[in-house]
């Protein structure tokens, strides 16, 4: 500390401030820890950042909106500037939304900023989840962080839905009515739950104020807490990186937070903010004035939820009708319960997938180098199947728009999507897996024999050969450096029994790793290079030695 005091005199104001803070809150230690955190450079690592920045924009614009929004359902006669609603009876909530749109300076822009940012928040989070899934970034030690991220995604949907319902216009009221119907579809508890939620019969005079409380207090607070946990875990785990020379599970290759990433990420925040502002200033979103105040009798054609609730709406639309069963004195409305089970079940599978894969592989190692999607064919295929399933549910929510805009029959569109929902994921799985395996085979070929150059040479003895150009070390590394798994066998436990659990695990392991392309081993690489002209020098070999340490051991299995 005494040395710090000495430097203070030389350093002037900045150093003085730094020293002042350091002596009181130990800022040097914090900066040393956080400021030297290394982040790798890749575009796909910025998707989560987009979601984070959208959340900041949501906080700012949302705060502005709370200044003017009044969450009450007391009826008033509208006397604002919007002509086609002048004199109409509506709730205070809707009237204040109209006032924000037409009379508060910058209000409409802020409403649109808030809504576009909300759509972007969930979309960016979803894309970030897909990146994490397909690169295997959820593997040990990051399984818990995957679940935290999943919670953020679900909370994003909750925040979005509670916000969507606040203006109390026809569209949001229709959306709430669907939720009310789903709640009432629950046997036994449904009617009571609905009554408690709405404070009586739907729509009542409570729901907007209640959703407002959730929307501006509980849900954002939870999101903030989970974001802090999420980012804290990123710091604890250090960031993952793609494979390349010198990139290992034990290191991170990139730039430090201070000053490179602070500048980069800070700039990126303003870019995301700018894009949101640009879109909000030029494109209408949720023109509430078109829909009129909520009235339970009218329902507008083309009533849809925001995109992130679309898959649940689609599930409802795709469910076969006439599934009600009367049993035990209650009605089991399976046409409502089934979609709820499908929707919640899908989300549960997403949340638990890392644990499932870890159990099947039995891999307890830490993974900090990301997989190329093709090098985990079964996972990638499962992901593609999941995306297809979700997309089919999602498309189900827009059957009417697909029908009118492409001049198709609504019924045919619905039936087609019902079929796609079941068959699509299977086809997507098979195609994706085959594509991955073929790409791996191609990589193997290129790693062993280089790229075809198109140059044909005639040898002195008359033979024609095509010259293959050897890869440089970087490319070679990418092609040969991946972890190889093999199916495990069901082994007897301590009592000498093969349990059902072990059998299931062995079966799943076979499902995952039966079809596989072994990584190129050092031996194969040497053999391949000896066949060719000695033009291939040691440079790629040297890299391959470090890369192929593990595969060498597994070579016998690979050959059979």
């Amino acid at each position, binding site marked *: 500390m005494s040395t710090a005091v000495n430097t203070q005199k030389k350093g002037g104001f900045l150093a003085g401030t730094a020293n002042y803070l350091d002596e009181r809150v130990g800022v040097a230690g914090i900066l040393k820890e956080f400021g030297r955190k290394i982040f790798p*450079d*890749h*575009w*796909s690592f*910025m*998707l989560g950042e*987009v979601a984070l920045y959208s959340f900041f924009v949501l906080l700012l614009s949302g705060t502005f909106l709370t200044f003017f929004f009044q969450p009450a359902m007391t009826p008033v006669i509208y006397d604002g500037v919007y*002509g*086609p*609603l*002048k004199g*109409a009876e509506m709730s205070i909530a809707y009237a204040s939304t109209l006032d924000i749109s*037409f009379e508060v300076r910058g209000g*409409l822009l802020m409403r*649109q900023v808030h809504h576009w940012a909300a*759509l*972007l928040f969930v*979309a*960016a989070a979803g894309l970030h989840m897909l990146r994490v899934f397909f690169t295997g970034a959820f593997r040990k030690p990051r399984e818990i962080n995957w679940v935290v991220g999943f919670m953020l995604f679900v909370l994003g949907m909750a925040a979005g839905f509670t916000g969507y319902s606040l203006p109390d216009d*026809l*569209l949001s009221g229709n959306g709430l009515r669907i939720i009310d119907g789903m709640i009432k579809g629950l046997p036994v508890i449904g009617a009571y739950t609905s009554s408690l939620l709405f404070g009586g019969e739907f729509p009542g005079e409570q729901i907007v104020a209640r959703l407002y409380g959730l929307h501006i207090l509980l849900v954002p607070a939870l999101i903030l807490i989970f974001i802090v946990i999420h980012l804290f875990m990123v710091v604890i785990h250090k960031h993952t990186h793609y494979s390349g020379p010198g990139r290992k599970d034990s290191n991170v290759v990139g730039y430090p937070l201070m000053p490179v990433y602070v500048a*980069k990420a800070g700039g*990126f925040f303003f*870019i*995301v903010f700018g*894009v*949101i502002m640009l*879109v909000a200033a*030029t*494109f*209408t*979103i*949720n*023109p509430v004035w*078109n*829909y*009129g105040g909520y*009235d339970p*009798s*009218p*329902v*507008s*054609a*083309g*009533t*849809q*939820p*925001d*995109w992130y609730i*679309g898959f649940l709406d689609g599930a409802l639309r795709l469910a076969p009708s006439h599934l009600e069963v009367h049993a035990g004195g209650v009605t089991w409305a399976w046409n409502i319960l089934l979609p709820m089970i499908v929707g919640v079940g899908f989300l549960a599978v997403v949340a638990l997938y890392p644990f499932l894969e870890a159990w099947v592989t039995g891999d307890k190692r830490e993974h900090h180098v990301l997989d190329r999607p093709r090098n985990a064919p079964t996972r990638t295929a499962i992901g593609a199947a999941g995306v297809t399933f979700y997309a089919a549910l999602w498309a189900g929510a*827009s*059957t009417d*728009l697909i*029908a*009118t805009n492409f001049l*198709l*029959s*609504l*019924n*045919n569109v619905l039936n087609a999507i019902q079929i796609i929902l079941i068959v699509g994921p299977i086809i997507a799985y098979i195609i994706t897996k085959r594509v991955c395996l073929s790409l791996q085979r191609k990589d193997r070929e290129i790693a062993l024999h280089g790229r075809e150059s198109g140059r044909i040479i005639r040898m002195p003895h008359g033979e024609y050969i095509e010259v293959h150009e050897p890869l440089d070390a970087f490319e070679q590394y990418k092609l040969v450096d991946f972890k190889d798994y093999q199916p495990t066998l069901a082994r007897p436990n301590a009592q000498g029994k093969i349990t059902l659990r072990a059998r299931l695990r062995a079966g799943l392991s076979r499902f995952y790793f039966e079809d596989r392309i072994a990584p190129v081993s050092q031996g194969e690489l040497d053999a391949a290079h000896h066949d060719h002209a000695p033009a291939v020098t040691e440079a790629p070999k040297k890299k391959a030695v470090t890369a192929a340490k593990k595969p060498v051991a597994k070579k016998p299995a690979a050959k059979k």
Partner: protein
Amino acid sequence: MAFMKRNLNGSRRHPMAAILVIAAGLAVSGGGYAAATAAVESTKPVTAAADAAQVDLGHKLFLANCASCHGKNGEGSANAPSLIGVGAAAAEFQVDTGRMPGQASGPQLMVKPVQFTGEEIDAIAAYVGSLGPGPAIPTDAQIAANGNATRGGELFRINCAMCHNAVGAGGALTQGKYAPALTHTKADHIYEAMLTGPQNMPVFNDANLTPTDKKDIITYLTYVQNNPSAGGYELGNLGPVVEGLFIWIFVLGLIITITIWLGAKSN
């Protein structure tokens, strides 16, 4: 080159003369035609004899264009309904929007380019109207957009929005049928459609929606047609599905492009 030479030789005519002559000719003939048409229009006789002549012309047009399906006297056939008693309003709606004469069978007749002049359409409507008592073509006063837009909006949401969408963006019906968008529909067609219930649309007669109600609805729709969204480009007024597509494809697409730019190694 010839044009250059003439100029150098000191031509008698200015090079622009030909263009001027053509322009003058066009103005005289076009203006004359317009004036003549206007004169004919203004002196259109409202006499019984003229009516008879109009119905006669309508009958001829009907025989030539409609009778193969609707029957020589509009009595209908296996392929098309009887037109006796549908009224002039129905005929004008169908023909003036181009839906009739129908060209292809399908779930619903589509709007297509109108096949007749205004005069011919009036004649056909007069003929169909003469077949039996039915709704007449609304007067200009009935369709004037000077009613109560607030009330019209409310009536529209209660009676029309479930098929046509809250802003008249259209919507799907079963088996390939649909409620068309009303974003460009003219006031007289809106009125006639309510009155006659074309295709899958129910009839909203004067007991159901009074002429004042109809006027209010037209006032509301005209307001929506003439006043673009205060929030910027409307994305077709199709609601959250289009907004979702837009955020995924364009906004996220733009942001990913930027991330790729940021993530690129500087050379």
